[in-house]
């Protein structure tokens, strides 16, 4: 009887353990957007993203922000054109809010619902998969956010009169540590 009671208490305690409040801070970040042009395949990289996350009551909310200006594609004029096209001076930050159940933090793949604010517009993406790798006290998260120009009403940047493709996927590689 006592053994059964102990087992029952142990199972009851499992969800509580999983719902422990935890705070996360991004240590390192690499965000890379990719754009395709008939004559160019271009990657623009930023290491300036910052992020914080909170897991509480079975849910996790993560906030990631990166200045639009911080992306470097290897050419000044192209970067300036991208800032102009994405209205980066008016809306200088790309803000991503990720929401997912806390239980997923134990899995190698996390499916998150994302709200992305970019170029003065907001777009939602559901069940975006991110790979999670634990390395000691740190957790590395990698994945791709499938942004498109049309989601944010961005007039597609053009070069030599030809516009880029609508898709501008952003690859995310961030390392987080618990506070």
């Amino acid at each position: 009887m006592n053994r059964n009671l102990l087992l029952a208490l142990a199972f009851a305690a499992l969800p509580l353990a999983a719902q422990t409040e935890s705070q996360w801070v991004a240590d390192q970040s690499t965000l890379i957007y990719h754009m395709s042009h008939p004559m160019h395949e271009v990657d623009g990289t930023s290491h300036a993203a910052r992020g914080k996350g909170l897991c509480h009551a079975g849910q996790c909310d993560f906030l990631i922000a990166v200045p639009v200006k911080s992306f470097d594609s290897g050419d000044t004029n192209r970067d300036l054109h991208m800032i102009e096209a994405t209205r980066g001076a008016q809306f200088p930050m790309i803000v991503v809010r990720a929401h997912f159940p806390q239980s997923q933090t134990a899995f190698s793949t996390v499916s998150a619902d994302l709200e992305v604010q970019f170029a003065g517009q907001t777009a939602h993406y559901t069940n975006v998969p991110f790979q999670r790798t634990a390395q000691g006290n740190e957790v590395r998260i990698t994945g791709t956010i499938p942004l498109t120009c049309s989601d944010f009403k961005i007039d597609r940047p053009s070069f030599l009169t030809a516009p880029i493709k609508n898709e501008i996927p952003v690859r995310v590689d961030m390392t987080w540590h618990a506070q």
Partner: protein
Amino acid sequence: MDWKAARPVFRNAVFLFFFLIPSLTPAENPATLAGAVTDAAGKAVPNATVTARNNATGQSALTRTNATGAYSFANLPPGGYTVSVAADGFAAKDATVTLTASGPQTLDLTLTASAAQELPNAPTLGDLGFSQQQMQADPKLQAMLDKHTEMLKIHQRLGLITAIPMAAALITGPMAKAKGHNGQTITEPTNANLDFHAALGGATTVLYFTTASFAVFAPKIPDTHKHGAIRVHEALAFIHGPGMILTPILGAMAYNQENNGQKVHGLASAHGPVAVATAIAYGAAIVAVSWPIHIKFWEKQ
């Protein structure tokens, strides 16, 4: 210089000048738009960023709501606009409106809370430690970037168009001397071939300097350190720029000598080589900014 013979060149230059300039000076009649931004409870949302984007031209104006949530735009060109509102803690919202010059128009907008903000204790943008300068909208810079992009787009288009008469002038240069009307090789140039070559040279010169002006007079964006292919592109301008000044001068000298029945001699004999060097530098400048074409080609192999 034989002005009678040079008339076609001058005529082409004048035509191109008046053909290009009117497209750069649009006429505008101002319209006014005003309104208020509130949350779902009807409470004013101060300091929200409001953008009015002209659907036809892509030009945009930006303002912020005041303490009562009010905003206004004056002197907007009439037309269809997308008005976007963004405020921290709210989902961005946009609406379309058609503005006319008849009188002030009103557009009120209601924002709903951002999905993530509905959860308690969720991190906010202020928690991330970005400086105010990094997060603050800069409408002046956006206007500068808009102008910069617009001028460089025209620069690119005109640059490609310029390559056409430039290539044709290179091709017709030897023909101006080598062939007669009936196809036989002659030692003296024909007036028709010379005039045609001179007209192409004139058109190239006018187009070239018009093209260059759109890059030279494009607004300089502050705090920008140039790197990448654009530096090669600009460096090559130090070759084809002087080349495009010298080539027509030497061409005019050669033209005069030909028309005076002389064989081209002295400095004028450098017209051809200078023109070829200029065209090569010009072509290289275009290729410089298109360099990844080749990378992509080899990667595919």
